[in-house]
Structures are given as structure tokens and as C-alpha cells.
């Protein structure tokens, strides 16, 4: 059952098209994460759904009903702001209870619900604390409790973990996923961090310049990026222009073997770092090791061919060559992806 759908939603700001005819559907209980670089229009997407940003054309439907003309406070969606926007003059309980008060909930009912939610987000008994005294992680939890308290039909998160440090972020993302699964919350989140998106979402939507570049499960998107932009945005460096002829592609790196079913003709080619195999210097593509960076489980080796773009290879810790060494490169067709 589709809860939210956008139909050709378009937003123009100051002559720039920030959202360009976006179509998107979010099913009930689904967690969708919109991923994109800053300026790709993902925050505007949330604001359009919330009613904070009027559409230039197109429609936003919630439960099948067109939301044009429905003011922000009647849409019954929740939005967690990037920097939380807790009300500074209210304590934690006052913040969490705010949405309930707006809906006219009785005092006892509010108190029960606030206690319930603070427990849920792991801050039991914090109701009387001042929001100014909270750490970043605690503020994030209070903001989440506040957004969840009125039981919104749809919960939207704008860079939910953006301002937190790395280890806290990794822990919270797991907590969030478990929590949403348990509550059956429908979630639309936006982030620029692919790790966060892949960890949190059932489905990832990659945005570029106001349009949707790709949509799919984290695995689909990771394994088969739709185009060179998505591949580069996901952190892949080995993207090159190619022309496929039979079972090999002609590239600046020489002949690269491709999977059997690859369509013929010009395309972009992605070679995952694991598919770049190092061999003796007199075999394959001759490269110089320009730099190596330690990645924990492996070493990323940056290779400079004589007159072609750089290549990144993933090497086992022990077998990685030293900087300045001369090596040869061969490609593994299983790690080669033909992009659109």
C-alpha cells in the first residue's frame, strides 16, 4: 500500500530548478533513503512533502490524497531537522510533548507518552533536563522522540546523523533501523553519506541535480550503479569511457575483459578496486605506484599508468607494493560493471 507518492514534483527557487519532475513512491512500513551530494535537491524534497516548500508543479499525495492546499500543521507527517531545532526555552519533556499538545492530548496522556518515548530512545528520566545541557547524541535522540510522539503517518529525517562523530553515528544507525522495524514506522530520510543510507534503508534513491539518478535496494545500487555519476558518488574511482567490442572493451587502460552479456558499443566502464590485479611489471598494463593508503582490511594502491587516468587497486595487507614500484595490471571480468 503506497503511503506517499510524488508525481512530477517540481520546485524552482530563484530561477533554478531544484526538484525536476520527481516521481517517487514510498510504501507503508518502508524505509527509503534519498542519497545525493549537497545541492542535489534532497532536502527540498522533504520540505515539499512537509508542505514547507510549495510545489511549482506536480503533486504530493499522502494516503492517496492530494496535499495541495493542506497547510503544514495538518499534514500529520514528522520531520526531524538536520540540526534538530529543539525549542531552547522548553525542557526535554516539553519538547517531546509539543506535538501532542498541538493535537489537544490530555495532560496525563502526554506524560505517559513522553515517558514511553524517552525510554524508547534510551533517555529514561531525562524529561526535566534543559535541552541546552544535552550532548549532540542526546539532542538527536530527543529530536527523534519529539518527531515520533504524535505518531506521524510518515517520519522524515534530514541528515539525521550528520553532526555526530563517526563511532556514535555507526551505533545510532543500527539503533534507528531496529527501532523503525519494531514500530513499523514509514521513513523517508535524506543523507549525503552512502554508508548511512545503505545501513538504514530498505531502498536507496540516488539524486542528482533535482532528478532521481537511480532507485533500488542497497545491494542493487552498490552492485550495479546506474551510471558514471552514481558510481563516482559511491566512491568508485576506476570509471572510464569505453567501447565494447565482443568480449573486451577498449579503454585508456587498454583492453578490459567484460561479462558475456554486455551490450556492444560505447559506454562507461567501472572496474572495482578488487578487480584490479597486480602482476609482474612486464605483463599487462605497466603502472607506477603513486601512493598507498591503509584501509584497515586492505591497502588501497593508487597506480599511475604512463598516459592514462589513475587506477585504484585493493591489495592484501602483506602483498601491497611500495610507493614508486613498477607493477603490471590485469583486470578480472567478474568485477567489471558496464554502466549506462
Amino acid at each position: 500500500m503506497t503511503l506517499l507518492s510524488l508525481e512530477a514534483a517540481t520546485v524552482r527557487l530563484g530561477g533554478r530548478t531544484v526538484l525536476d519532475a520527481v516521481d517517487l513512491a514510498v510504501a507503508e512500513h518502508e524505509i527509503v533513503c534519498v542519497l545525493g551530494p549537497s545541492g542535489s535537491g534532497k532536502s527540498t524534497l522533504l520540505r515539499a512533502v512537509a508542505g514547507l516548500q510549495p510545489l511549482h508543479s506536480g503533486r504530493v499525495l499522502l494516503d492517496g490524497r492530494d496535499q495541495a492546499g493542506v497547510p503544514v500543521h495538518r499534514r500529520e507527517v514528522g520531520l526531524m531537522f538536520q540540526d534538530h531545532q529543539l525549542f531552547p526555552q522548553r525542557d526535554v519533556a516539553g519538547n517531546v510533548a509539543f506535538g501532542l499538545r498541538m493535537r489537544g492530548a490530555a495532560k496525563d496522556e502526554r506524560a505517559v507518552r513522553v515517558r514511553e518515548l524517552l525510554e524508547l530512545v534510551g533517555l529514561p528520566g531525562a524529561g526535566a533536563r534543559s535541552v541546552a545541557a544535552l550532548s549532540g547524541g542526546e539532542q538527536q535522540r530527543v529530536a527523534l522522540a519529539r518527531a515520533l510522539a504524535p505518531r506521524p503517518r510518515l517520519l522524515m529525517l534530514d541528515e539525521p546523523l550528520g553532526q555526530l562523530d563517526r563511532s556514535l553515528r555507526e551505533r545510532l544507525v543500527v539503533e534507528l533501523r531496529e527501532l523503525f522495524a519494531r514500530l513499523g514506522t514509514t521513513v523517508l530520510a535524506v543523507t549525503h553519506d552512502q554508508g548511512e543510507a545503505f545501513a538504514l534503508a530498505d531502498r536507496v534513491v540516488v539524486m542528482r541535480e533535482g532528478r532521481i539518478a537511480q532507485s533500488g535496494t542497497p545491494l542493487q545500487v552498490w552492485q550495479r550503479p546506474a551510471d558514471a555519476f552514481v558510481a563516482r558518488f559511491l566512491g568508485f574511482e576506476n570509471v572510464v569511457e569505453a567501447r565494447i567490442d565482443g568480449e573486451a572493451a577498449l579503454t585508456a587502460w587498454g583492453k578490459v575483459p567484460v561479462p558475456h552479456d554486455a551490450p556492444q558499443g560505447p559506454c562507461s566502464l567501472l572496474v572495482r578496486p578488487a578487480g584490479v590485479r597486480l602482476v609482474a611489471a612486464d605483463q599487462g598494463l605497466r603502472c607506477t605506484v603513486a601512493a598507498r593508503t591503509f584501509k584497515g582490511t586492505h591497502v588501497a594502491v593508487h597506480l599511475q599508468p604512463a598516459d592514462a587516468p589513475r587506477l585504484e587497486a585493493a591489495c592484501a595487507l602483506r602483498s601491497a607494493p611500495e610507493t614508486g614500484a613498477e607493477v603490471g595490471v590485469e583486470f578480472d571480468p567478474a568485477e567489471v560493471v558496464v554502466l549506462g
Partner: protein
Amino acid sequence: MAVPVAFFAVFFAYPVAAIVRRGLHADGAWHLGRIADVLGQPDIRHVLWFTTWQALASTALTLLIALPGAYVFARFDFPGRQVLRAVVTVPFVLPTVVVGTAFLALLGRGGLLDELWGVRLDTTVWAILLAHVFFNYAVVVRTVGGLWAQLDPRQEEAARMLGARPLTAWRTVTLPALAPAVAAAALMVFLFTFTSFGVVQILGGPTFSTLEVEIYRQTSEIFDLSTAAVLTLVQFLCVGAILAVHAWTVRRRESALKLVDASTTARRPRGAGQWTLLAAVLASVAVLLLLPLAVLVQRSLTAPGLGYYRALTDADGGTFLVAPIHAIGASLSYAAAATAIAVAIGSLAAAALARRDAGRLVRGFDALLMLPLGVSAVTVGFGFLIALDAPPLDLRQSWILVPLAQALVGVPFVVRTMLPVLRAVDVRLREAAAVLGASPWRVWREVDLPMVRRALLVAAGFAFAVSLGEFGATVFIARPDNPTLPVAVARLLSRPGDLNYGQAMALSTILMVVCAVALLVLEKLRGADRTGEL
């Protein structure tokens, strides 16, 4: 938005239009030549010349004395700094009449300097200049010092690290950042002194007369309303020009500066030079700001058994129809009514101006709101006098006339106080409330109001103090049987005799205490979230 606009249309634009008509329209025809006629008179040219040069001199003198003060209050930490900072602001809200009286007590006939050394300055221009410095010291300390305190000292340190000597670092980093604030402060001081009325009226004697005083003289002594109207127009144009330049410098000041929390930048003075500077600033504050007020209080107490204060309760001095003491009650109730009007109009205007999507037209209204402040009280009073005394709007007999005029002068203060606070409310905080289900009205009540409550009180206090001390407009329209405190003081001073003089001192002291208390309470309220503006 509609309410403030209507208010200004009826009580500002309409009177100004009436002045134009009175000055340039006669026998069914327009006489633009009258402007040239009036400006051609040697007396008037003399007044214009004096008005301009005394304003320039006052501004220069104020900057000279107050800029070191701005530095000391911004960058030095010393015991009593907070209190002293509040104290130097008191003169700004003191009624001009009180300031005039205080300087008369210090420099005038039978004044302190006269008694000690036989020196009298009340017949020279120095009395006026010093009184203007007294008044505007706070403008410079607040505007320039407020910004100075928020400039990140690390900017200068960065310049030092790159090889600049201390003075070079100051000149190349700090001075350019401060320059627009200095320019803005200088323009404000110039504006205030250009339109100075009460001070010149009391200290200038027959020799010195500014445009404002001349307009009043033409109206109430010579009864030449059309000359007064022309002069008002000239003044109006000058002030408009000054305000336009001011708005321009303010916009430039809003350029991106790296600002930090003011409480982190002050430190103890180091070395003999800095201690000397601190001592010099404190001494100048003591002599220029505190001494006149102290002398005023002392003079009011010279009659045995608080005689001057007791005389205030008698009606048989002949100066008034009622005992001067009644002026206190009248003043307080007028000021209360004016405050209510000013806060209502000012808040509505500030709320409209604070909207992020406010267009050019609305922002233009911002400048318009400042006009009554600069256009001078006398214009407002004179305009009321000639515009609102005949149908369709005859308010001459109504008590509301005085509060209306005072509110007009108070509104800019309310807007100035409320606007930064309203603008500082994060739009997304309002959005957060809306997403949680708050209607626009609830958003205002739940998010905006708690944040601006303090600013609202401060604005009300400012409006109250300003209304209480308002002289220029009130003197035109206050009824003889119901004078306000400043009007009563001026009238007492215009009569001969020790008793009248003493009573003026006593009444001024009362007025000063009320205003000072109001301001100190406000300072307390403003507390940490004080901004650089007045």
C-alpha cells in the same frame, strides 16, 4: 502591516503634508519661491550655518572622547565594568531638558564653575558642545564598542603571526572592520545634534539657535507659521539625506564579519600605557557624565529642608495653573498611554519587517519608521499642531494628542529593539513547530512569544523612558493646565528668581531618577543578550 502603515499615514505623513501646504500654499496657489525667500534671510542663513557646524563639532568632539571609551569598555576587564557600561547609557535616555538643566547647574550663572573660579560657559557654544558629548557618548560606546567586543581577537593575532606589528595589525585588520560602525555612529550623533532642541533651547540663550529652536521660536513667539513650515521642510530634507546615508552604512556593516561572544574578548589591562588609558577614560566619564548629574542633584537640595521639593506642591508660584507636582502624575499617565501605543504599533511593524520574504516595499518602510526619530520632535509637534486641530481630525481638546506624539517618537525604539530578536528566531524552529501540528497563531505563541518576551519588556521600557522625557513635540501640544515634567521644567527655567530655578532643579532630579531607574532595570533585563545597537 496595515495598522502601522495607517498609523504613520494619519499621524506622520498627514501632518507633514499639512506643513508643506501651510508653508508653500496660499490663496489657492503654490509658492515654491518661498523657500528661496526664507533661505535668503541673513538670520535664517546664520541659523542654518550654526546648526551645521555645531553638529559637526559636536560629532568630532564626541568621537574624540568616546572612541577610547568604546575600546576600553570593549576590550578591558576591570571591576565595575558592567555597572559603568550601564551608567554611561543613562544620559542617552535622559530628557534633553534634564541635560540642559544639569549643564546650567554646572556651567551657568551661579553654577559650580562660576562659584569656584568665576567661569561661565552658558553663553558660549562650549556648553552646547559638552552637553551633546554627554548625550551621545553612549551612542558611540554602544555602536562601536558593541562591535569591537565581538571582533575575534584571533584575527589580529593571525595578522601578527604573519609578521605585522601591533599597530599595523590593528590598522589593517581591526580598523577596516570597525570603520562602518564608526561611520554609522558618527552619522547618528550628527543627526541627533543637528536636530538638537531642548539642550540648545536651555543653554543657547538668545545667541545660539538651531533649526529646531528657530522653528519653535517662529511658531510660538513670532507666530510666523509659514516661515516655520518652510524651515521644517528644510530640516525634513536634511534629515532624510542623513538617514539615507546611515541606512547605506548600516547595510555595509552587515557584511560578513567573524564575530565571537563578547564576553570572551575582554582581559585585564597590561602595562603602564593601558592602565593610563583606562584611568583617562574613567576620569572623562566622571567629569563629563557623572559630575553634571551630581551637581544637578546638589543644586536641587540647596534650599533648607528640601524647600524646592516642597515648593513643587504649591500652585501659587504663578507659573502654572496647577502645582508643578501634578506634572509628575500627568507625565506618568501620558507616558503609559504612549508606551502602550508605541509597543502595539512597533511590534506589528517589527513582525512584518522580520519576515524573511519581506519585499523591497516593506524594507523601505523600515527606513520610514526611523524618520520620526530623526525628523525631530519639533516637526512632529508642529505637524500635530497645524494638522490635527481642525476637521476632519480635531484632537486638540483630546488628551490622546500628547501620547500619540510621544508614541510616534517611541516607535522607532520599539522596532529597533524587537527586530534583531525577531530576526534571530530561526525560521526552522517555526517550521519544526508547524510540522508538529501548530497552526500559524500557535507557532507565534509557542515559539516567538517566549523568545521575544524580554525584548518586548525592554522595548516598552525604552518607549516609556523616551515618552517621559519627550520635550520637542510635547511642548507644542501640551495644554497649559496639564504640562508634562519636561515642559514644566522648561517653563520654570524661563522665569526669573531662585525659587523657580531651584524648583526646576528639583523637578529635573525627579525626572532623572525615574528615567535612570527605568534604564537600569532594562539593562538588568537585557542581560547577556544585549546587541551592539542602542
